[in-house]
């Protein structure tokens, strides 16, 4: 009890300084949580586009980004005929622009595509999608920011397209995207006869290995990955995740420096008190325990405050109309635990030198001269 009182007392004694340290950790944790959660949410959204009613993604081997992948049409037709395949759908990804909206995701799909089948059609229907070359279907969010309605014309790139349907999906990218018939998209993006990926649904999930082997044999330039494999191995996802953690880590590093500063000041301003503890039998470990206890308390309070602030920030972003549909933050328990753990580790690292200094305080000198 006295031990904890020593920790609390010192933090309370310099409460403004302690609060600043807590704020530093809290801001860092909030930033890390927000960035990681939003990017993980974005990855999840993109991943769900690919895994819509499918288990396997086939794309060009050794491409850095799916936008650069080119899968020939004959691969689609051949795979669709393999007995283990229930259906194989080509999807062409592209980015289009419209006045005032420089980046809109475009999906070149066939009428049998699960995205169209499973979406809620606000206006128009799936049947009108087939065979059109100058028409598009818009996600409801895209229709909103393009101020387009059923039957109207929208400017996309250098072309004008008639809106033949508006659909609503739970996926932010799809809801803010443009759907073109595959043929029209191939022409628009100058990728005649090609798609970016093939999404494949197998009749039996256990045949995934056989399917991948068949792709390796028949189409050595292509690679087939199960959805989870893709999430783990896709370089863009890995880069995004690494960036998120790096940005968050930098924030936490700054927070850690704040803790270090607080703990150094804390030790320097009470050398006499430390000497008193030493004279009364406190061991090096007990002295260090007080210092680490203070930093742990600051870090823990900061981390919890940061988690609350981060959650509030994410909620706030979701409520901002401009971000609607794009911010689909996914807060995973492992991320929460990792963030709290990182905050505690940062705090502990920040307390290393102060604790070392406190352990080396010589009681005789401190009591004589201070």
């Amino acid at each position: 009890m006295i031990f904890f009182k020593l920790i609390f007392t010192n933090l309370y004694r310099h409460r403004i300084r302690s609060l600043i340290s807590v704020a530093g950790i809290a801001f860092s944790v909030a930033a890390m949580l927000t960035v990681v959660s939003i990017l993980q949410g974005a990855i999840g959204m993109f991943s769900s586009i690919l895994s819509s009613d499918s288990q396997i993604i086939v794309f060009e081997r050794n491409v850095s980004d799916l936008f650069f992948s080119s899968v020939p049409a004959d691969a689609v037709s051949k795979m669709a005929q393999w007995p283990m395949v229930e259906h194989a759908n080509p999807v062409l990804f592209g980015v289009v622009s419209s006045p005032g909206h420089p980046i809109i995701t475009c999906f070149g799909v066939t009428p049998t595509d699960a995205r169209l089948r499973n979406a809620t059609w606000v206006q128009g229907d799936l049947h009108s999608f087939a065979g059109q070359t100058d028409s598009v279907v818009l996600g409801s969010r895209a229709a909103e920011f393009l101020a387009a309605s059923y039957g109207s014309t929208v400017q996309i790139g250098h072309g004008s397209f008639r809106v033949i349907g508006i659909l609503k999906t739970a996926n932010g990218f799809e809801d803010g995207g443009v759907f073109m018939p595959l043929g029209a998209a191939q022409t628009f993006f100058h990728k005649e006869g090609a798609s970016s990926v093939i999404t494949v649904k197998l009749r039996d999930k256990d045949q995934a290995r056989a399917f991948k082997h068949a792709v390796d044999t028949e189409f050595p330039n292509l690679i087939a990955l199960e959805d989870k494999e893709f999430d783990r191995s896709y370089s863009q996802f890995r880069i995004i995740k690494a960036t998120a953690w790096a940005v968050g880590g930098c924030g936490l590093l700054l927070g850690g420096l704040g803790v270090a500063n607080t703990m150094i000041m804390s030790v320097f301003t009470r050398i006499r008190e430390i000497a008193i503890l030493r004279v009364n039998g406190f061991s090096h470990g007990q002295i260090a325990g007080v210092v680490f206890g203070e930093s742990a308390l600051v870090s823990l309070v900061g981390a919890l405050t940061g988690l609350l602030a981060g959650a509030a920030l994410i909620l706030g972003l979701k409520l901002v109309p401009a971000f609607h549909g794009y911010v689909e933050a996914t807060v995973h328990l492992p991320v929460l635990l990792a963030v709290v753990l990182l905050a505690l580790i940062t705090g502990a690292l920040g307390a290393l030198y102060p604790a070392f200094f406190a352990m080396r305080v010589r009681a005789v000198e401190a009591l004589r001269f201070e």
Partner: protein
Amino acid sequence: MMPARHFDSGSPIVLSARGVWKSYDEGTVAVLKGVDLEVFAGETVALCGPSGCGKSTLLHLLGALDNPDHGTVMVNGVQVQSYSDRLRLLRHQVGFVFQLHNLIPDLTLAENCLIPTVAAGTDRRAALARLHHLAERTGLSHRLNHRIQKLSGGERQRTALCRALMNRPAILLADEPTGSLDEQSSSMVFELLMDLVANEGSTLLMATHDRGLADRCNRIVEMHDGRIEELAYAR
């Protein structure tokens, strides 16, 4: 060295300094110059001498707060060398009282007194019982939950005395324990000190300028310029 009058037969030596030298500032300021001293169990010894003669330094060495440059210091027959020896000594065998009370101002009287028991890992119930006993003996029972800032100088020094005795140390080292108090408080604290030492069966080595207080100890040790010049028997 002559043995003390009352302890020359049977009482073991609890503190011993032999040929102890100590200097500061990389050897340029010699504070102790070959000190020899023995203190017997249950003895009360006053260490007298002018400021700067090395009284406090000798107390620190005997209490294992510092190491001598040369010579040996033994406590209860053991030469304190290792960190664990030192820790055991500070926790269980030696209690310190300083001129300035050296209490932690933001803690209460009780919390300050309990610090040595926390360090030693004493059972909390036993520690509280000991605290209440000492507080009663020193007239501080009604002040246990008061912060140090609320206490008078005399109360603070009595608190320091309680703290020093919490772990029942065999040896009490007091460095000018009444030096910062007025005459009345000084007398009261000293009476308590002597009374507690007698009741606890502790050994007292006290640095003091006050000849009146020194005369009430079993033995007076006069120091001058880092050396022990004279051993006298007060009574």
